[in-house]
């Protein structure tokens, strides 16, 4: 029963302490709130950038053309060879006949020209999607080496540039999230240190009358947990309502429909959980570190 009593008293004391040191508690809650709002913003940006990157990357393909005189057996052979390249996700074959029909349907001028020609001047082709955009260049190189392949291209140069930019955006936003989490930890730890400093005589007495270290530590750890938890309420409300409203106002897209946004559900739920966890865990760690100084462990 004794451990339960110690835990119960720790929780009770942590509530008491938050109320007794009200202004200090408010200060650390506000600090947490502000940093967690920034964390939430950074998470929203990161996740959306990632999402956009993903969708754009999925649209990047290699188009390969077979030589003019390729037989249908050879076409099948080429298709298997491409499929066997590691990292290739999908290969779609489009014959020159299909191309001709499609082109004629699309443009009346082309229809006249194509009808005028006796033989089909177009080439059989393959559209290849890869698992990872980084594989585009090496895969295209391998395809070019296959017999009867005339050419294989994926918009060289432009693609590399886009991937480069996306990678920079990803790294920067992730770095910002990590930096903000560290800042939050630092702020909570410091405000708990102030709380503990204002209660050092209480800790001294606890030590003198024979409190075990754990029972001295627990109320402060709960207090840090409580401050972090309360500090994450407003950021969560802002995230949930802010994102849902913004998403609806914008119709799910930014930049005139070019960039698609992540659907609010369940995204805002996950973000809220992340905020609660960051707030409370960081609060607990911060206060545990702060109290250790007074405990000669």
């Amino acid at each position, binding site marked *: 029963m*004794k451990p339960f*009593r110690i835990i119960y008293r720790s929780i009770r004391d942590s509530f008491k302490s938050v109320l*007794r040191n009200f202004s200090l508690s408010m200060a650390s809650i506000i600090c947490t709130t502000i940093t967690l709002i920034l964390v939430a913003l950074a998470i929203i940006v990161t996740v959306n950038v990632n999402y956009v990157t993903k969708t754009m990357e999925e649209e990047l393909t290699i188009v390969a053309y077979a030589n003019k005189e390729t037989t249908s057996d050879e076409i099948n052979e080429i298709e298997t060879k491409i499929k066997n390249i590691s990292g290739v996700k999908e290969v779609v074959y489009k014959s020159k006949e299909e191309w001709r029909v499609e082109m004629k349907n699309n443009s009346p001028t082309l229809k006249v020209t194509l009808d005028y020609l006796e033989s089909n001047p177009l080439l059989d082709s393959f559209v290849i999607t890869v698992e990872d955009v980084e594989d585009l260049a090496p895969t295209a190189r391998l395809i070019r080496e296959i017999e009867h392949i005339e050419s294989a291209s994926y918009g060289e140069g432009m693609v590399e540039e886009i991937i480069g930019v996306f990678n920079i955006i990803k790294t920067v936003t992730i770095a910002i999230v990590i930096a903000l989490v560290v800042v939050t930890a630092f702020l909570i730890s410091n405000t708990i240190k102030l709380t503990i400093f204002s209660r050092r*005589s209480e800790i001294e007495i606890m030590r003198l*009358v*024979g409190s075990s270290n754990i029972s001295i530590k627990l109320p402060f750890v709960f207090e840090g947990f409580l401050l972090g938890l309360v500090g994450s309420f407003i950021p969560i409300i802002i995230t949930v309502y802010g994102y849902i409203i913004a998403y609806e106002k914008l119709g799910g897209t930014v930049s005139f429909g070019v960039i698609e946004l992540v659907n609010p559900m369940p995204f805002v739920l996950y973000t809220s959980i992340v905020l609660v966890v960051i707030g409370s865990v960081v609060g607990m760690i911060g206060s545990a570190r702060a109290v250790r100084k007074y405990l*000669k462990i």
Partner: protein
Amino acid sequence: MKFIQIKNCYKVYKNGVTAIADLSLDINKGEFVFVIGASGSGKSTLIKMLYREEKPTKGIVEIGGINVGKIRNRTVYKLRRKLGIVFQDFKLLPKLTVYENVAFALECIGMKSSEIRPKVLKALEHVGLKEKVRSFPNELSGGEQQRVCIARAIVNDPKLLICDEPTGNLDPKTSQEIMNVLDDINKNLGTTIIMATHDKDIVNKMKKRVITLDSGVLFEDHEKGSFKISETI
């Protein structure tokens, strides 16, 4: 049987000050001992080694067969639960009532509320403060505050009560009242009491064993001694 045994004990602080040098003494169960000496003679250091706030640099400090200097920081609390400690500066929590201050010591060690109540009331009765349970420390006189501290120190029935200048902040009359309370605890509860002081009148009046320190060295150890240090200074 020797309750407290100190053997060839030294305490050298990190700054190089030797606060206790080659101290050896025994204290029996139920004794009332004064530790006297000029300011800086090492009284507080000796007291601190008894409740393991400081470790001896060399030598042995033993209480009830336990080598106190060997106790690890993590388990010091087990020793503290068997001791009562009283200081010059009271160390009461200003936002708690008299009752809560005394109960605090038992709550800290995880005792049940139903067990805490009778113990706290008994301790407060012992120091004559039963009518003041609801008062806050700032509503009490210095002597009353010190009696709350004594109640808190004895509430868990310790075998040993350690006092570092408990009358240092009090006028002579109040000091005498505190001494009466301590003497009563020593006689009626059988608690061993070690009290550091430089209050000449009290030492002379109480006629107890007196251990005199001089620059950390044992200068004199007298049964029913008196305050001799005043002559040497």
